[in-house]
């Protein structure tokens, strides 16, 4: 813990009167406020796509997708390098955010999947999605872990409000994750038993 600096040493004798008192009050505010927090690399890197997946005007939609696609392309380059650099390691990083984009079955959809640190073999995940249509009764969306190019294991189900409205759900992947694991979202109809049609797939 560092000591508070001495005001007289900081300002010196040159400043006096009202101006000195004004500086002293600022000094006291600085001492009371304490240091600004150190940002994690994740926060310092800038706003995430997930922050802006809320409702927005329709005319901005196309522009958003172009921007998002550009961001996804940049991220994919980094992510590819990261995954490649970690092949043979112990698994995925503690916190990762992946972008998913709509397939031909849901071309306007976008999603951000954040994998959080878990315990006891669990990997909680926060999925924020927008642009998925509202489904008929008893139909739902399902998130799958994809391994070896196949839908390997389910990670949870959710419903979408439809339109541009975003929804955020917390899911879980209670599996031993490996580098190269991916996720996709399928649409499962009422009463269907097989995995449904993919509606969101990894951006890269």
């Amino acid at each position, binding site marked *: 813990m560092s000591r508070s600096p001495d005001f007289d040493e900081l300002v010196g004798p040159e400043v006096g009167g009202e101006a000195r008192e004004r500086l002293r009050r600022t000094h006291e505010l600085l001492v009371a406020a304490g240091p*600004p927090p150190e940002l994690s690399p994740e926060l310092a890197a800038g706003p995430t796509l997930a*922050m802006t997946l809320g409702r927005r005007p329709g005319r901005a939609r196309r522009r958003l997708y172009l921007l998002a696609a550009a961001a996804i392309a940049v991220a994919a380059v980094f992510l590819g390098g990261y995954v490649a650099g970690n092949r043979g390691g112990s698994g995925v990083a503690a916190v990762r955010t992946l972008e998913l984009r709509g397939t031909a079955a849901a071309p306007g959809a976008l999603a951000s999947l954040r994998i959080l640190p878990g315990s006891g073999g669990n990997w909680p995940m926060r999925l924020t999605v927008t642009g998925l249509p509202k489904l008929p009764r008893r139909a739902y969306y399902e998130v799958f872990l994809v391994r070896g190019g196949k839908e390997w294991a389910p990670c949870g189900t959710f419903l979408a409000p439809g339109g541009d409205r975003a929804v955020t759900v917390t899911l879980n992947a209670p599996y031993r994750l490996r580098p190269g694991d991916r996720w996709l979202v399928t649409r499962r109809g009422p009463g269907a038993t097989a995995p449904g049609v993919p509606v969101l797939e990894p951006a890269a």
Partner: protein
Amino acid sequence: MRRDRKDMELALATPRLRPSPADETAPEPDPSDGELLARVAERDRAAFEVLYRRYVRSVFGLALRRLRDRSRAEDAVQDAFAAIWRSAGSYRPERGAAGAWLYAVARNAIVDRFRSAGGEAAGEMPELVSGEPGPAERAEAAYAAWRVHRALEELPPREREVVELAYWSGMSQSEIASYLGIPLGTVKTRTRSALGRLSDLLEGELR
């Protein structure tokens, strides 16, 4: 500033709206917070990024004060900026300063996060004991810290550097001069200039 290799890798693995600027010395953007909010209301992502960089430390500091847990505070920052993005259109300049509006939106998002995590046990001060600040005083202190941290972002980098070294690294003015390799007189001039600039920025807090 210590970052380990893993942290850097994690940062690279997180998709962003656009690549973050590598040049920290780029000049401060000119638009006011209110102008940026108006642009964010029109879904201008560049404006949102400028606003984010101006306020992320203040929001994170506020979240840490309330939640007392870095991981949950980081989640609260996500919530807060998502709320700012969603609600920017509701900001009315005639009703008050943009900074105060941003504070209110961020605080509400942080409180929601706090409540969703179990409320009292998660970080709220348990019982008030004699001599400890009450809710109103804590709220006032939180807002003052918010404004101070925001004002620090406005300082030129060279002035901010000497303030941070003087206040939070425990260095004397002579030690700062030696550390930075500049004359002692320059350190004193920059410090006085920074305090004067902060006084202007924090005018409302000084009354």
